[in-house]
């Protein structure tokens, strides 16, 4: 039995929920999520959400900072939409009940963030994502949005270059069912678990990106992977570095980076902005210090908050203090926090326009899994929460506009796809001899950390690509071991691994082909930005021969491209 809805949304983080809220009054909309919505990764965002809400600031300044921060790869029309709509998104969420931090006179407080000339980041202490997600979920409940929680989407079903539904595995029962709809929204977030060192939730496995690629959609700018300069490192005696995010908000409040000599060093890499330079610049600065022997034993540096004083730390950065105490046994009021760069965000994703339309009719994407190209080669802090809320609403509006022109659902094709998926999962679960999937996941993580990280070069990327291909073929010979149908998390993690491998291949292929350095993509063998050749988006498509890379012009128009 195929389940039918007008619109299906995959993912119940901020993007997915905001799209659903926009559509629920007029359409039968359902959200599928592999976790309960409140467990979505949006909850972990700390620092804040950007909006030009003061007279001294303007959407144009916000747009300029975003485009400059993107190393001129962001599409200007998309950035214009984001920055013009920003105040509305923040105010709407305030109206919904979010408890933002405030100035003494009761207005929304704003803090400085990297790469921005004005303190325009609204925040809720250092738990902004938590506050926004809980509020948005409350509104989705109020509106009666239908949610299928703990359903893992296993494929997007297409017919003649058009998305018509999906198949999904219900964790509780282990059953696969087909879902038919006129429009599908992919809102599954990022893919941090391609890397071992990542700030992301364990559930961030790029599922939607891989599903869309397999369904015939193209991906865009996948080589642009943001590494966050300050994530919680393990100490020298510890094997575990959790890489939990230590928000840029900490540096915004005045925290410094210090090397093993106890000296600040960011003035060498960014004389004016220092710790508040763009994230790629700070990440390279830290790794250069470590490379040149000024790191601490175990390969990390310190982020010092002690001079901020107990009161400010408790008021503005309480979550950071809690993280440092719980996961590193360190109270940042008294001691500096061990930090290292780690994967944080994916600028690339499903190729779509600024309204969320992918090239595959009926398929839309929004949030981190999408690439409307608002972040270009490097995202500014405070723009990702903003993207989810602004474009969540816009994608909802777009679908409402398109809806009458989309064909009615095709149940038979969806039913067939569900049947095939049941067979595939049966085969996967029955394999008796082979290596455990965890081995492949570990090797994939290691390869990506070592060869497709902050510093890249052609040699390493070639090696990584052939390694990924090898892992892909080894994936066909795995054995999952003895287990049950119900709540089969080993099966879920194996399906996630299949997605991670595809995403890793796209990232690495894109990085190998882009022979320049731009934003977060730094090639040691091509250290300069090359606008002549590469002021272009990379577009990745799956063909019978493997992944194919093509290029498309960046949409300009608002500002001149600068060096």
């Amino acid at each position, binding site marked *: 039995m195929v389940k039918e809805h007008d619109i299906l949304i995959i993912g119940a983080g901020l993007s997915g929920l905001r799209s659903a809220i926009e559509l629920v009054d007029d359409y039968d909309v359902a959200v599928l999520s592999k976790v309960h919505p409140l467990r979505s990764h949006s909850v972990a965002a700390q620092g804040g959400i950007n909006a030009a809400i003061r007279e001294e600031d303007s959407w144009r300044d916000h747009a300029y900072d975003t485009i400059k921060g993107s190393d001129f790869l962001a599409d200007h029309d998309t950035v214009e939409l984001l920055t013009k709509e920003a105040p509305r998104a923040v105010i709407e969420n305030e109206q919904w009940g979010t408890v933002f931090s*405030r100035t003494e006179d009761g207005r929304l407080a704003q803090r400085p963030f990297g790469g921005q000339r004005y303190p325009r980041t609204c925040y809720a202490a250092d738990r902004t994502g938590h506050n926004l997600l809980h509020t948005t979920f409350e509104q989705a409940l109020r509106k009666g949005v239908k949610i299928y929680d703990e359903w893992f989407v296993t494929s997007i079903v297409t017919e003649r270059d058009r998305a018509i539904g999906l198949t999904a595995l219900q964790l509780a029962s282990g059953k696969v069912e087909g879902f038919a709809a006129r429009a599908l929204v992919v809102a599954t977030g990022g893919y941090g678990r391609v890397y071992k060192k990542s700030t992301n939730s364990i559930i961030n496995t790029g599922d939607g990106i891989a599903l869309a690629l397999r369904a015939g959609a193209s991906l865009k700018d996948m080589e642009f992977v943001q590494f966050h300069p300050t994530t919680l490192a393990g100490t020298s005696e510890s094997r575990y570095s959790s890489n939990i995010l230590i928000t840029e908000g900490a540096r915004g409040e005045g925290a410094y980076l210090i090397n093993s000599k106890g000296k600040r060093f960011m003035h060498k890499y960014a004389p004016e902005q220092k710790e508040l330079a763009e994230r790629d610049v700070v990440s390279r600065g830290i790794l250069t210090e470590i490379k040149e022997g000024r790191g601490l034993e175990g390969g990390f540096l310190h982020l010092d908050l002690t001079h901020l004083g107990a009161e400010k730390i408790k008021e503005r950065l309480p979550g950071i203090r809690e993280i440092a105490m719980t996961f590193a046994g360190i109270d940042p009021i008294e001691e500096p926090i061990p930090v290292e760069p780690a994967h944080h965000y994916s600028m690339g994703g499903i190729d779509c326009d600024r309204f969320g339309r992918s090239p595959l009719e009926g398929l839309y994407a929004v949030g981190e899994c999408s690439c409307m190209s608002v972040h270009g080669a490097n995202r500014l802090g405070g723009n990702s929460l903003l993207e989810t809320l602004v474009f969540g609403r816009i994608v909802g509006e777009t679908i409402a506009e398109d809806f009458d022109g989309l064909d009615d659902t095709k149940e038979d094709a969806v039913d067939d796809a569900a049947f095939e998926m049941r067979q595939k999962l049966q085969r996967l679960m029955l394999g008796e001899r082979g290596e455990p999937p965890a081995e492949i996941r570990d090797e994939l993580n290691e390869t990506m950390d070592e060869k497709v990280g902050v510093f890249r070069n052609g040699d390493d990327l070639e090696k990584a690509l052939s390694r990924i291909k090898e892992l892909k073929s080894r994936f066909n010979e795995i054995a999952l071991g003895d287990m049950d149908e119900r709540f089969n998390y080993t099966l879920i993690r194996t399906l996630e691994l299949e997605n991670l491998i595809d995403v890793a291949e796209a990232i690495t292929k894109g990085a190998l082909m882009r022979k320049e350095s731009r934003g977060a993509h730094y090639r040691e063998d091509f250290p300069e930005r090359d606008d002549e050749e590469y002021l272009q988006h990379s577009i990745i498509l799956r063909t019978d021969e493997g992944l194919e890379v093509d290029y498309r012009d960046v949409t300009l128009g608002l500002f001149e491209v600068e060096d």
Partner: protein
Amino acid sequence: MLFRIARSREGGEITHYDVYKVEVSEGMTVLDALFQIQDRMDPSLAFRYGCRGAVCGSCGMLVNKMPVLACGTQVKEIRDLSMNLHDFPPLTDIPAGWDPERSVLIEPLPNFPILKDLVVDLSKFYDALEELKLWAEPQPGNEARSQFPEDRKRIERYVHCIMCAICFGACPVNHEKEEYVGPAALAKAWRFYDDARLTQRRRYLEAAKQEHGAPLCELIMNCVRACPKGVAPGGAIRKIKSESIE
């Protein structure tokens, strides 16, 4: 180190305990240990997880009879943990053969039906949010409202709730009275009632004071002791009890 883990492959009752030998290293959390078991020893072991950073609230469970987030609990610190909880059967029924000196005991969060192993059915916990209508009604206008820092501060700790259900699982009343909405929902009701920006705030208080709400709470305060985020629902419930609806 040995981990003794409650199993229930079909759901319902805990049927038995399996013992696993985990290689412990510095900085390892209980969640890391569970993944080591699932990845290397027993792919059938089921438990929920998410952020691994103590913010998403997925991995609440009983560790040595204490309700905690598995990801926020360091293995080497388990023995020093102490919550001074008021006892009720799931915390006092010691499984045969468990010696706290020799192994770490892992069990599902109490007061919820077991679905499989450490995975419990939280639907009654989530349903309370809808029953009590725990959301703000948006007001017309396109300006952000004022909220003074002191007004914000009053409700801030309740806003920190991550809905991990540990308070519900730690509460002796929830253990006895299935109909009790539990501490998290009441703390959230207070958060809206005390939010100076909202109008029609009385409805949250009325919802909190309904018969399956605050009146059932005996102010035992296990919720306050067990909460991993310092929300302290018991304080909110005390205030709800003393507030008159008039």
